[in-house]
């Protein structure tokens, strides 16, 4: 498998993902989360760009807007954490009547956003998200 490479442009990193990595990441999202009953899951960077996304076909979300808002929301919450003297909050989760959304940081630069319905418990989802983020971090070698 070809390794991905990172190019430094004046500090923060830009990323290029090759086909093998993206296929491997999508497999993890599909097998570990969508097959578990998650409605929609996407991997984004902290700038709000989408790297990979998978869904069960039920949700027709505007994922580009969701990604931009999720990155903004995560950034805002992280800054709030620092203002009260916390490094970061360990649980980032919004519960709705039908749908809920869960955020998980992956390495320093990425976020895994999961949208799921009432059938899944938060605890089980967190366990599975933790497994999936471990596998994706290994694929990204970060």
């Amino acid at each position, binding site marked *: 498998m070809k390794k991905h490479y990172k190019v430094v442009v*004046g500090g923060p990193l*830009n990323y*290029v993902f*090759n086909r093998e990595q993206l296929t491997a990441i999508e497999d993890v999202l599909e097998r570990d989360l969508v097959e578990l009953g998650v409605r929609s899951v996407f991997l984004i960077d902290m*700038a709000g760009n989408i790297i990979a996304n998978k869904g069960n076909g039920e949700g027709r979300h*505007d994922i*580009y807007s969701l990604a*931009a808002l999720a990155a903004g929301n995560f950034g805002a919450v992280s800054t709030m954490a620092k203002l009260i003297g916390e490094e970061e909050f360990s649980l980032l989760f919004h519960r709705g009547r039908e749908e809920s959304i869960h955020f998980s940081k992956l390495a320093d630069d990425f976020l895994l956003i999961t949208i799921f319905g009432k059938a899944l418990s938060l605890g089980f989802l967190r366990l599975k998200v933790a497994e999936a983020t471990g596998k994706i971090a290994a694929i990204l070698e970060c």
Partner: protein
Amino acid sequence: MAIVNLKKGEVQAKIVYYGPGRGGKTTNLEYIYRKFHDRIKTEMVTIKTHGDRTLFFDFLPIEIGKIKGFDVRIQLYTVPGQVKYDATRRLVLRGADGIVFVADSLVVRRKENMLSLKNLADNLATYKKSLADVPIVLQYNKRDLEDEGIPLLSLEALEKDLNSRLRAPSFGASAQKGPNVVQTMKKIIVMTMDSLRRNLM
């Protein structure tokens, strides 16, 4: 932080409209949204306060077609211009691949323009970047107000205040009426793609 997806053959890049409050950043995006409505599949996202001022950001994704075989998707953002929202401004700036600085041509806004440009440089520095590292285009907005007899800074004066060291491409424009709004966007997209090509491809 641009993303190049070799599987889908897609490039995503982030362009941020920066500048002082009430300068016309949101109006730029609104004009683009109206003009290219048929090409934009989603609604423009805005997070505003009750007073119709930008609280967090506006967001508008545009697909601009293929460049060198890649589908290019540009994400346009605005920052909140008001001084008190510096923390959110910094968050929106994160990962910006290109910047449009929207200056207000009104004579009374001269100081705010200069302070906002200084603030941009300070906020880029928190990401270990300088104005020289990121493609930037300057837009001197509200040129249409000249016809209404409102005192405006001349383009030469604006260049001297804001662009004497940067020497970035600049446009006199009217976000309200449309002149040079699209040209500004096209210029920053071309510069951003050039910069990404140099650095990534």
